[in-house]
C-alpha cells in the first residue's frame, strides 16, 4: 500500500512539473504576442523595424546611393541619378605608394565611389589597390610632372568615357553630386576649367591644386596637345600655378565656380578653417590669393560645396556622414537652387546648339 501511494505521489509530482512547464510556455507565448501587437508598423516610425526596401531604380556598379537601405527609405535620388548619367566625371586622385593605405584608402571608401570612373595615380603601379604607375619619382617637385603624365594617361585611355576630368589629392574630399550640379550648366565641348580661383601671377587666375580642379573634355584635349607641341613648359615646382599658366596660353577659360549667391564651392581648407571667423590669421597668404573677395564665417561656403582640402582620414568619414547620412528631418533648407527634372531636359537641348556658351549664360540668368 505504501509503495502505491508513493507511486501516486511521484506521478502527481511529475504531472505538476509538466503542468507548470506547459503553462509557463503558454504564458510566455501569449505575452510575447502581446509585445508584438503594437499599432501597425508605419513608415517614418522611429521605433519599428522596416521591411526591406522595395526596389528603387538606382544604378548598380560603382555608384551605390542606397548603401544602407532602411535609413534612406524615403530618399528620392532620381535627380542625382539623372545627373550621374548626363554629367560624366572621371576623377583621378594624386597619391603615392606610401599613401595608398594611409590616405587613398579612405578616399576610395568614401567619395571616390561616386565618380563615373576613378583612377589613383602613383609613381609606381599597384595592381591590388589598384593604382596606375606614372613612372615618375615622388616628391613635391614632381607634382607637375605627375599631373601632366596623369592627364596624358587619362587622355590615352579614357577620353570618351567621361565629359569632365577632375583632379584631386588624397586629402581632398569631393562632393560629386554638387560638382555635377555645377557642371550641368556648361558644355564639355567648351574650353573651360573650374576650381578655387586664385589671382596672383596669372591674368585670368589659376586654380588651387589642393582644392581640386576639373577640366572639360576640350580643355583636356588642348592641355595634352600643348605638350606635344611644346606650347606649355614641362617642368615646374608649383603644379597648380604651372597648370594655370598653361591653361591661359591654350585659351582655356578659368571659370567662376561660385554658386548663384556668390559663395565659393571649392575650398582649400577644411570647413572649420573657413567657417570660424579669425581662424586663418589676417597675415595668412590666403587672403591675398583669392580671386574673388574672400569671406569667413557662414558666407564662406556654399551649401552645395564641391570640395574641401587637408581632410584627414577621420574627417573624410565625418564629412561622408554629415553629407550623405545625417540630416534634419523635414527641414526646408534656406538655399533652394532650382533644377527640377524638366530643367535637365532643357539643358540637354541647350547643349545641342552651336553657340552653347550664350545659351548657358541665358540659362544661368533664368535659374
Amino acid at each position, binding site marked *: 500500500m505504501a509503495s502505491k501511494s508513493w507511486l501516486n505521489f511521484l506521478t502527481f509530482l511529475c504531472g505538476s512539473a509538466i503542468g507548470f512547464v506547459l503553462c509557463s510556455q503558454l504564458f510566455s507565448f501569449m505575452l510575447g504576442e502581446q509585445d508584438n501587437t503594437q499599432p501597425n508598423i508605419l513608415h517614418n516610425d*522611429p521605433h519599428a523595424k522596416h521591411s526591406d526596401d522595395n526596389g528603387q531604380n538606382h544604378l548598380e556598379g560603382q555608384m551605390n546611393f542606397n548603401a544602407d537601405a532602411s535609413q534612406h527609405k524615403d530618399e528620392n535620388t532620381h535627380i*542625382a541619378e539623372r545627373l550621374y548619367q548626363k554629367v560624366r566625371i572621371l576623377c583621378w586622385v594624386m597619391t603615392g605608394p606610401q599613401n595608398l593605405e594611409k590616405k587613398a584608402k579612405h578616399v576610395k571608401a568614401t567619395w571616390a565611389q561616386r565618380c563615373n570612373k576613378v583612377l589613383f595615380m602613383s609613381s609606381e603601379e599597384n595592381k591590388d589597390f589598384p593604382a596606375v604607375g606614372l613612372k615618375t619619382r615622388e616628391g613635391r617637385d614632381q607634382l607637375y610632372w605627375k599631373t601632366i603624365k596623369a592627364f596624358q594617361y587619362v587622355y590615352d585611355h579614357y577620353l570618351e568615357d567621361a565629359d569632365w576630368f577632375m583632379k584631386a589629392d588624397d586629402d581632398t574630399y569631393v562632393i560629386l553630386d554638387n560638382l555635377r550640379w555645377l557642371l550641368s550648366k556648361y558644355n564639355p565641348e567648351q574650353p573651360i576649367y573650374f576650381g578655387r580661383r586664385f589671382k596672383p601671377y596669372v591674368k585670368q587666375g589659376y586654380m588651387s591644386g589642393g582644392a581640386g580642379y576639373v577640366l572639360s573634355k576640350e580643355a583636356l584635349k588642348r592641355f595634352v596637345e600643348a605638350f606635344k607641341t611644346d606650347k606649355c613648359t614641362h617642368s615646374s615646382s608649383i603644379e597648380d600655378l604651372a597648370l594655370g599658366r598653361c591653361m591661359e596660353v591654350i585659351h582655356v577659360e578659368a571659370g567662376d565656380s561660385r554658386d548663384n549667391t556668390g559663395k565659393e564651392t571649392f575650398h582649400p581648407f577644411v570647413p572649420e578653417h573657413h567657417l570660424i571667423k579669425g581662424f586663418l590669421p589676417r597675415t595668412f597668404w590666403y587672403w591675398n590669393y583669392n580671386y574673388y573677395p574672400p569671406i569667413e564665417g557662414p558666407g564662406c561656403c556654399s551649401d552645395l560645396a564641391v570640395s574641401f582640402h587637408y581632410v584627414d582620414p577621420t574627417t573624410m568619414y565625418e564629412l561622408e556622414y554629415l553629407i550623405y547620412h545625417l540630416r534634419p528631418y523635414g527641414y526646408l533648407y534656406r538655399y533652394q537652387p532650382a533644377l527640377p527634372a524638366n530643367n535637365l531636359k532643357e539643358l540637354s537641348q541647350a547643349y545641342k546648339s552651336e553657340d552653347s556658351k550664350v545659351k548657358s549664360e541665358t540659362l544661368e540668368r533664368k535659374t
Partner: protein
Amino acid sequence: MLSESSSFLKGVMLGSIFCALITMLGHIRVGRGNRMHHHMHHHLQAPNKEDISRISEDERMELSKSFRVYCIILVKPKDVSLWAAVKETWTKHCDKAEFFSSENVKVFESINMETNDMWLMMRKAYKYAFDKYRDQYNWYFLACPSTFAIIENLKYFLLKKDPSQPFYLGHTIKSGELEYVSVEGGIVLSIESMKRLNSLLSNPETCPEQGGMIWKISEDKQLAVCLKYAGVFAENAEDSEGKDVFNTKTIGVFIKEAMNNQPNQIVEGCCSDMAVTFNGLTPNQMHVMMYGVYRLRAFGHVFNDALVFLPPNGSDND
C-alpha cells in the same frame, strides 16, 4: 492505473494553477521595473508613406507645429565660450530656449539659479519651466552646453508619442538597479512627466535635495530616482535599426572607434541618420555642425518627409 493517472492529472492541474499564480504575481511586482509593457504609452499613429504624399503641405505644417519643445540649458560661468556657441547655433531651433546659470554672468542673458549644485540647478530649472510654461510647451529638453542637438530630429522622434503620457527619454545608462538618462546626451520629458516630477519636488523623501549620504550622486541619477517614484521610467531612444539617437560622444569619437573596430563599415557603424544629440563638442565644432547639418548637402537627393520645419528668422548660419 486509474489512481495513478488521476493523480497525474491532479498534478498537471496543480502545476498549471501554481504557474499561473506565479506569472500573475510576477507581472504585478516586476511590472514597475519592466520597461516596455507597463508605461501605458500610446503610440500615436504616424502617417504612412502613401498617406504622406496625400497630406497637404498645410496639414504637414499643422502636424509639425503640434510639437512645442522648450529647451533648458544649464550653464556655469566657466562654460562661457560653449554657452555663446550654443546660443548662436542649435538652440535657435527650439520653440523656446532658456539658459539657467549658477550665477549671473555679464553680457549673457540667463535665469539665475543662485546655486553651484547641479542637482539643485536642475530641480529649480524644471520647476521654473513647469510653473511658467506648462500650458505652452508639451516637451521639455534639458542639455549641457557641450551638447549639440538637432531639434527637428527630436520632433521626428517624438512623432508617435503622446505627451500626456509619462515619457523620459534619452541615452540611458544602467547603474545597479537604476536606469537613468544621461544628462550628457540630453534629457527629454513630456508634459506629463514634468507634472509628476513637479508634484514630487517638494517632497524631501522621494526627491531629496541632498542625494547621497557619503558622496554626491550625479544630478541625472537623482532625477531618475525622483521620477521613478512618480512612475516615470527611463527609455533609451533608438532609431528603427537600434542605433542610439541621443549620443554622449562626438561624431569624431564614433568614427575613430569604428575605424578601429569595424574598418569595413565605418560610416554605417557610426551613428543614426536621425541622430538628435552629440556631446563633447568645442565651440568651433558647434559652428561646423550647424553648417554640416543645416546647410551642407548633396544635390539631387530629395526626401518626402511627414513634417515640415522652416528655418528660424534672423539667422544666417542655417
